[in-house]
């Protein structure tokens, strides 16, 4: 509890580090911060060209279908890859200055989260532009974003702390996220999974999260809360476990780095 209070006292550090992260990511480029928007826009353009002209998929408006799931997925995967090295990358700070170490993974996930928010501006514009449009179900968007944030944060707590002690994890996670990407219905629809594997597919928390995003943005139907509830419970448990593990492991960070 004491450390959570302290984390609150350091909120300015989180804020300013996230800001620094976002501002310096595209520093030196001509478009600068605009890249945050241009990046997803160009991605969408590429998918549209490929899937409309070259690789025909029997899903209507497939580029958009893909994009809606891909943006939240990219938040998850980039958070894991960049978040897992967040402590190592700040070795200089960790060895020299005291601050709650938890800030590092939080900043990493938060700045990726901010990027997702900016991407969703493009998503919404694209939804209108491609004629898919939006429904009132979009009100659930903040809810699912928060759930995903908690889930990813829990994972990153664990991975960032473990990577300090086991550097291989960084490379292992690259393969892991790639496999995970194909096991999650992002490129394909959940209906394409044979029935006997469906239960397994839903054991993957990202499945219900991506399906939820797609329901409210692309399909414009009432999302399934029944599958989501296990994900929420799992995410909250994960973030608590991650927090405890991180706090235990962080005591020797300065020595191990």
């Amino acid at each position, binding site marked *: 509890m004491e450390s959570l209070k302290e984390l609150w*006292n*350091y*909120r*300015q*550090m989180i*804020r*300013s*580090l996230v800001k*620094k992260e976002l*501002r*310096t990511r595209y*520093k*030196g480029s001509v478009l600068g911060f605009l890249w945050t928007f241009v990046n997803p826009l160009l991605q969408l353009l590429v998918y549209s060209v490929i899937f409309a002209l070259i690789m025909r998929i029997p899903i209507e408006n497939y580029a958009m279908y893909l994009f809606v799931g891909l943006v939240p997925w990219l938040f998850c995967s980039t958070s894991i890859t960049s978040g897992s090295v967040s402590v190592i990358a700040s070795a*200089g*700070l*960790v*060895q*020299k*200055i*005291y*601050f709650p170490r938890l800030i590092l993974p939080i900043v990493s996930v938060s700045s990726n989260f901010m990027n997702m928010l900016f991407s969703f501006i493009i998503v919404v514009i694209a939804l209108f532009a491609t004629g898919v449009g939006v429904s009132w179900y979009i009100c659930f968007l903040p809810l699912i974003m928060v759930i995903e944030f908690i889930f990813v944060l829990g994972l990153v707590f664990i991975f960032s702390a473990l990577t300090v002690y*086991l*550097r*291989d994890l960084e490379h*292992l996670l690259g393969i892991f996220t790639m496999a995970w990407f194909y096991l999650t219905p992002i490129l394909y629809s959940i209906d394409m999974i044979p029935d006997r594997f469906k239960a397994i597919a839903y054991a993957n928390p990202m499945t219900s999260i991506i399906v939820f995003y797609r329901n409210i943005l692309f399909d414009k139907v009432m999302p399934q809360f029944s599958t989501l509830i296990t994900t929420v419970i799992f995410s909250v448990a994960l973030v608590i476990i991650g927090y405890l593990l991180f706090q235990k492991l962080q*005591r*020797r960070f*300065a*020595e191990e780095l």
Partner: protein
Amino acid sequence: MVVIDIKNIYKSFKIYKDKAFSLKERVLFRNRSKHSRHMVLNGLDIQIHSGEVVGLIGENGCGKSTLLKLMTRIMYPDSGTITVKGRVSSLLELGAGFHPDLTGRENIYTNAAIFGLAKKEIDLRLQDIIDFSELYEYIDSPVRTYSSGMYMRLAFSVAINVNADILLIDEILAVGDTNFQEKCFNKLEELKKEGITIVLVTHDSGVVQRFCMRAIWIRDGKIAFDGDAEGAVNTYHKYMNKKKIENYNNGRDYTIEDIEEVYKFFLGRETENQQVLLHQYNHYRHIRDLIDVILSSHEFAERAELNEFDKKSETEIIREFRAYMKREKNEVLSLGLNDGQSTGEASLQHEKDIYIKKAYIKGFETKKKIEVRPFQKMDIAIDYQIRKNEDDLILGFGCSIYYPDGTLCYSSSTHRDGLLLHHLDADGTVVFSIENLPLMNGSYSLSVHMEDEKGSRLDQIDDCVQFSVVSDDRSVGLVNIPHNWSQRN
């Protein structure tokens, strides 16, 4: 009020021989223990009161920086507790967390946030920080355009202006130009007057004496001294000087007892004269050098004829000596000979029957500064005294010249030159004459000794005269070789 309360803390580090970071190595070499534990802090108890300015001193690796890191909570102790009350600002490294692409102003916000300040608090202090750093017109330029001096100024300004209750400083005052250092010190003095608790780690005893009211000397993870700064620095210096001398002796690969063994083995006798031992000990860094000198001596040649030595090669002799040392070593140690006893005996030397009164260079008896020219005549006189009245007393004299670094330049004795001096006066002078002094420009030191008929030293004065050879000769080297240039057609 106690603001930093350290109770019985222990801290150890793993020392990795070869750190296994990767999974492969961890799995493959699971059973190989690649680290050893190194105790850094060994049960420390320190209480620092509000408003105290405490210096932590000690050698490198004594644990003082670790202690500071424990106070800031960068590290945690293995056992024991540390309670720190109040906001801590640590100046362990200035400018940690600066981003080169952000402007000075932006970096102030980021850096101050790292110290745990809220935005409002930073807003309040922004002007103070900029004022102190004197970076007015540069504050909105990216930090990467700053000079290192400007960078340090900004970093220090942030760290010092966060209104901490406790300031922890590690060696940072060694950086920056003198003006900036002065400014930092003035600021620290100011903070000291305001009653802020300051703990600093430094190697600069001057800083401790001038700035701290209390100093803690940490040695091998324990408190060796805790008290007034002056006393701490003095005790620490005394210890360091002693250690320096010990280290110098440790550079040798043998002990003074080993020399006795060398004598016993090669010359078949013990050297009763401790002065000789000390002399050898001082002049040969490696026992091999000493053995070489003995092997090439007249005395050894004589002895070699008496026993089987002359049939053996030098390496065989050395090998035998090593084996001999191995056998004798334990015995030697159990005899309990030590330096204390040897020096004790050495101080008695003037009560001896035969001794050197003084040695000097003729013509320079009263001069303090002796300057001679190369290829001139130089007479070294040795005044001696014999109290013993034996009719057939045979004595010898020796003379050694050393380069300033202690290297032997030249040494000889009546014994080595095959001379025997009979019927000496009880109180007399022996002169060692050099016709053409073949020395290069530079300063030299002279040692003289007296020896018995076998060449064992009876008395000796090291470093009795220092003299310089001065000339406009521009040649270089160790000896001045008389020469001429000629041309042949």
